[in-house]
């Protein structure tokens, strides 16, 4: 607080020097739009994919305006249609004030205030911006689309610091907290149904990110995580009591980039606690979900990129084949609902600075990554299934 008191007058002074050119000259506006076509052999994924789905559309527009070199205001509106999970209603993706208290060739630190994208793993911050993703779909075992909102953003405060060393690289740390933004997909994912009630954030969610990058940004190593508590508010006819679900989601990330290829690997662990629902549908239990992937991208030309990825995700690391959790439900939920093993192959073509198209094939074993909102009958899904998708993207 003391520092803030010293820095604020400085920031206001520099406003004068900056105001020679028009304030609005520095406004930057960017945006994107994408449309995908998805076909699966079985199981619903982003809409009625067994009959070919067009229900995956992303439209975003953002603006940023520096008040002076130290204060940046930025916001983005996002309309996202994703099968039965999202209907395309525009939402505020982020809206923040970024205040830099120090910026030099040695270090930079400051604070962000407002709705902030969670900097989890390599991709979460820009997960809905199609050309920042390696494929049409991010690795679903870590960047779940069935519960994306829980990890998406936080209404709160984030401190950041970066330290630059000429020959050793960059170290950066982000620490923050606030209220996580939750929607009813979260209830479907963690309780299996909405059970006539609402799952709401309980207290403050905590976030951290610690990152190392070599001087020429070839190698990146990082660890990041989020600590989230949720409380269930039962409706009048809800079979569940006011229970709580607490989770700690953490990711270890690795990326190495050469001129023609990039290798990426991430590992995520997620201990989850269910308490006090007082119902056979949701007994008290502790489970640790586990997932990881290895991904290679090869640039045939600067505008043409091949993608190959293998990923595995488990709802419970101590019950990888899902037999125990299936038995708990008397076999109503099949064992393969507790894991996903996915091979992905893709090709991306950046036609020019505005247009990009890509195609993707996925071979799935297991249905852990499917949304139970899209596949409500647990007896229905097929264990082995295929996915084909194409996507066209425009940006400016």
């Amino acid at each position, binding site marked *: 607080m003391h520092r803030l008191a010293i820095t604020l007058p400085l920031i206001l002074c520099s406003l004068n020097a*900056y105001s020679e050119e028009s304030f609005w000259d520095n406004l*930057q506006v960017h945006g994107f739009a994408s449309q995908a076509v998805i076909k699966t052999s079985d199981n619903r994924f982003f809409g009625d994919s067994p009959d070919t789905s067009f229900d995956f559309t992303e439209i975003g527009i953002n603006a940023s305006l520096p008040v002076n070199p130290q204060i*940046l205001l930025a916001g983005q509106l996002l309309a996202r249609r994703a099968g039965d999970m999202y209907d395309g209603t525009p939402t505020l993706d982020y*809206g923040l004030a970024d205040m830099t208290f120090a910026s030099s060739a040695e270090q930079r630190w400051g604070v962000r205030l407002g709705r902030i*994208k969670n900097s989890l793993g390599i991709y979460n*911050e*820009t997960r809905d911006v199609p050309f920042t993703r390696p494929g049409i779909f991010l690795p679903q075992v870590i960047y779940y689309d069935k519960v994306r909102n829980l990890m998406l953003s936080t209404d709160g405060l984030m401190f950041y610091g970066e330290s630059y060393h000429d020959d050793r690289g960059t170290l950066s740390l982000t620490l923050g907290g606030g209220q996580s933004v939750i929607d009813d997909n979260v209830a479907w994912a963690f309780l299996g149904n909405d059970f006539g009630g609402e799952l709401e954030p309980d207290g403050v969610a905590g976030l951290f990110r610690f990152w190392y990058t070599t001087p020429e*940004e070839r190698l990146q190593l990082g660890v990041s995580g989020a600590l989230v508590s949720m409380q269930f508010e039962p409706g009048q006819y809800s079979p569940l009591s006011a229970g709580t679900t607490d989770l700690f989601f953490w990711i270890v990330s690795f990326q190495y980039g050469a001129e023609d290829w990039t290798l990426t690997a991430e590992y995520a662990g997620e201990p989850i606690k269910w308490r006090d629902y007082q119902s056979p549908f949701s007994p008290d239990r502790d489970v640790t979900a586990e997932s990881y992937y290895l991904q290679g991208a090869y640039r045939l030309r*600067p505008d043409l990129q091949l993608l190959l990825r293998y990923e595995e995700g488990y709802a419970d690391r101590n019950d990888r084949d899902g037999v125990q959790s299936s038995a708990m439900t008397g076999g109503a939920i099949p064992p393969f609902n507790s894991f996903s093993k996915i091979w992905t192959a893709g090709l991306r073509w950046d036609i020019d600075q505005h247009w990009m198209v890509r195609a993707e094939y996925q071979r799935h074993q297991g249905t852990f990554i499917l949304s139970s909102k899209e596949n409500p009958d647990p007896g229905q899904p097929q264990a082995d299934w295929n996915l084909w998708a194409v996507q066209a993207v425009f940006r400016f």
Partner: protein
Amino acid sequence: MNRRHWTLLFASLALMFWSLTLTAQELIVNRATPHQPISRNSARLCFTMRLLSWENRLPVKVFVFPDNHPTHRQFTKSVLGLFPYQLRQVWDRQIFSGTGRAPVIVATEQEMIEQVAATPGGIGYVESGANHPQIRILEVR
């Protein structure tokens, strides 16, 4: 071809290669920015939009060519030591998460020189030499 022809061919190839290395891209700044040469690391911080102001408090304003421009590709690799796709990733992450800004894109060398000359705190690059009273070539160490 006799031996003299071979020698001549070899000599002219060597000359061509030498002249290629001579036309290394140069980092240019507006005259109002500080005078000292900058480190490669500082140059990287400028072009990844992480260094926000110069020592004299002028805001850093970055100008670049489009991603596929030959001068951009060469400058990124030989002066900054980065690959163009890495710069693009850094910019996109910042623009689309609200944590930073994009550089201003210019189409021609002429436009590059004019913009940097007209912008106090401006920084950019050219293929070789920039003759303008408002522009200084900055040495990268």
